[in-house]
């Protein structure tokens, strides 16, 4: 049983890696790009869901964490350029830079998470929004970070396989977190913070940790995005981006990992199909947003998961003994 469980946590990663590696060669450039964007949106949505969906906090500054991760990674790769040869060395530096981006984003998440000790609801929302804006203002004023133009001329290191694996890791982190003691504590905070505290849950500690995890994953998404675009500018990380991600998770159902996953993917692809409308695209999109929300107020899956909606599989799993 033990190795089987170990396998269960690695299998999705391996599977996505192999699958994407097989597919990516045969994809036309355009769909490749769309899938990269979809994958990055999946990482963003699923990770923000840890804060907004699981823990019930209200963060609207996710793009700020993306920016921190992206600029860290971009700076590291650009400063080591010329020191390492292209190929394997560059890939290693890239992976290291992404990891460093995750760390700095996590630190930023820790700093922003701290005020959530004292603030709740909409006050916290304003702090996260403010953080997002402050990051943008700092970047625009910093010559080191390239001001409004940003950092250009990055090598194209992100591949669909990387994005796919990062998305798989994110989903795994979210699912495993949800099923752990840690996740139960987060849910308890969401349902009733006072009761959770009374039951001995260290609410502040858990909230900050949720922030840190989400921020690190957002930093990863940011790093992947800029190394696909080969350009890192503050325009990619405005609060409008943050709002888009919030829309994705509410549409998918707050707290539902598969909901966030599906809506992130569907919305990205939907927006691409609508591209032919030109100026009418966002009008159609906004109407769809309104009508979908009116028609299905709890989001696509509510707080449930897609597998909760497939009764037959579950019954089989229950018969098999292992939940």
């Amino acid at each position: 049983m033990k190795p089987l469980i170990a396998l269960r946590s690695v299998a999705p990663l391996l599977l996505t890696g192999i699958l994407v590696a097989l597919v990516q060669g045969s994809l036309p450039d355009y769909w490749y790009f769309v899938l990269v964007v979809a994958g990055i949106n999946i990482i963003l949505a699923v990770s923000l869901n840890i804060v907004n969906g699981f823990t019930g906090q209200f963060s609207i500054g996710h793009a700020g964490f993306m920016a921190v991760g992206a600029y860290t990674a971009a700076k590291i790769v650009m400063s080591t350029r010329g020191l390492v040869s292209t190929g394997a060395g560059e890939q290693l530096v890239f992976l290291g830079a992404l990891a460093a981006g995750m760390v700095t984003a996590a630190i930023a998440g820790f700093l922003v998470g701290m005020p959530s000790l004292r603030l709740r609801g909409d006050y916290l929302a304003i702090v996260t929004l403010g953080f997002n804006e402050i990051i943008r203002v700092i970047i625009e004023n910093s010559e080191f970070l390239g001001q409004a133009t940003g950092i250009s001329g990055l090598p194209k290191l992100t591949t669909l396989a990387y994005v796919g694996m990062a998305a798989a890791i994110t989903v795994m982190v979210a699912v495993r977190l949800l099923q752990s003691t840690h996740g139960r504590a987060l849910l308890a905070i969401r349902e009733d913070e006072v009761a959770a505290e009374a039951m001995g849950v260290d609410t502040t500690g858990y909230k900050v940790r949720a922030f840190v995890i989400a921020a690190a994953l957002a930093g990863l998404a940011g790093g992947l995005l800029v190394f696909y675009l080969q350009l890192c500018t503050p325009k990619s990380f405005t609060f409008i981006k943050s709002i888009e991600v919030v829309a994705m998770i509410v549409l998918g159902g707050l707290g539902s990992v598969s909901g966030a996953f599906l809506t992130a993917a569907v919305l990205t692809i939907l927006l691409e199909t609508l591209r032919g409308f030109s100026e009418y695209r966002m009008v159609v999109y906004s109407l769809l947003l309104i009508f979908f929300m009116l028609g299905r107020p709890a989001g696509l899956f509510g707080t449930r998961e897609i597998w909760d909606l497939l009764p037959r599989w579950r019954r089989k799993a229950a018969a098999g003994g292992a939940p």
Partner: protein
Amino acid sequence: MRFSRAVAVATLAFAVAACTEEKKEAPKPAAAAAPAPAPAPDKIIIGHVGSMTGEQATFGVSTDNAIKLAIAEQNKKGGIKGKQIELKTLDDQGKPEEAAVAATRLITQDKITLLLGEVASSRSLAMAPIADANKVPMISPTSTNPRVTKDGANTRPFVFRVCFIDPFQGTVMAKFATEKKIKNVAILKDVGNDYSVGLADFFQKKFVELGGKIVAEQSYKDGDQDFKAQLTAIKGKKPDAIYVPGYYGAVALIGRQAKELGLKVPLMGGDGWDSAKLFEVAKGALDGSYFSNHYTDEDPSPVVQEFIAKYKAAYGSVPDALAVLGYDAANVAFDAMSRAKDLSGPEIAAALAATKDFKAVSGVINIDADHNAVKSAVVLGIEKNKAKYAATVNP
């Protein structure tokens, strides 16, 4: 449980159905941009990526209008190599990643021959590597950042532009100000806009080099409506002039508010000022100010006068700088395509690089080794709420 599943599936199906259905009923005004059926082989498709919506939509729309005009003209003349030209415009909402997706789609799905765009350097920088990788020539009408046509130290083989670059335009105004015996200048720039920041930087460098002094540096942000805080601070420093390298929307308000505060010094700016809207909103507040531009509408040459007349007839307004450069970008492209041996990317790029003495609305265009347009700039003075020719500055 079963019910909710049904609803979930139904809503998803609805969403998909809604978008496929509405595609059929796509309203006609968007027809020019709507996806067309597979291109007939006797057609040349040109792509344009622009911000048709979003904060900078007014520039994208101007550019697109002018490109449409240029294409209609060329088609009337019989097209290129006997083939008619068709335009496909995609919106990028002013976001770099959207610009990159749109460029990829045009190049790989629609198989365009040539790519026009983007207005802003930050989005052109996202598109340039894609054009290069796919060997499709790209002409940016107005991206002024030197890095757009550069990949590190090398010139991007497939990326061109028809406008000045920041280092040139910034120095034009610095030289002009020095000639006007202006000593102390305050700078007011749009900190979120690379065009504005770039111009301000190069202006400052050259102006200080020529012996001038920068007494204050203030900034604003796109979408701001109130500039009095910055202007009051500038007033306290008593400058001889204020350099405002922004776009006309903000500049008109800055002019008005400077006048309201009793700041009677001239403002100076760049080609972002060139729009009839500037005068409509400023209502004389900018009299005595100067800005650098590509051309003057007083220029009697037929290229200029015909374009202004045609643009007015088609869209009911005087073309702004964005429209002029969009028109020029399209025409430079047509010129190169007719000179090229065939319509493959490398051939067109070679022809573009060899562009010499092309008579465009914005002046005589020569493409240099860095794929930048080399042309002289004019400085226009504003008198009685109208732009009047003041000087020509050569590169």
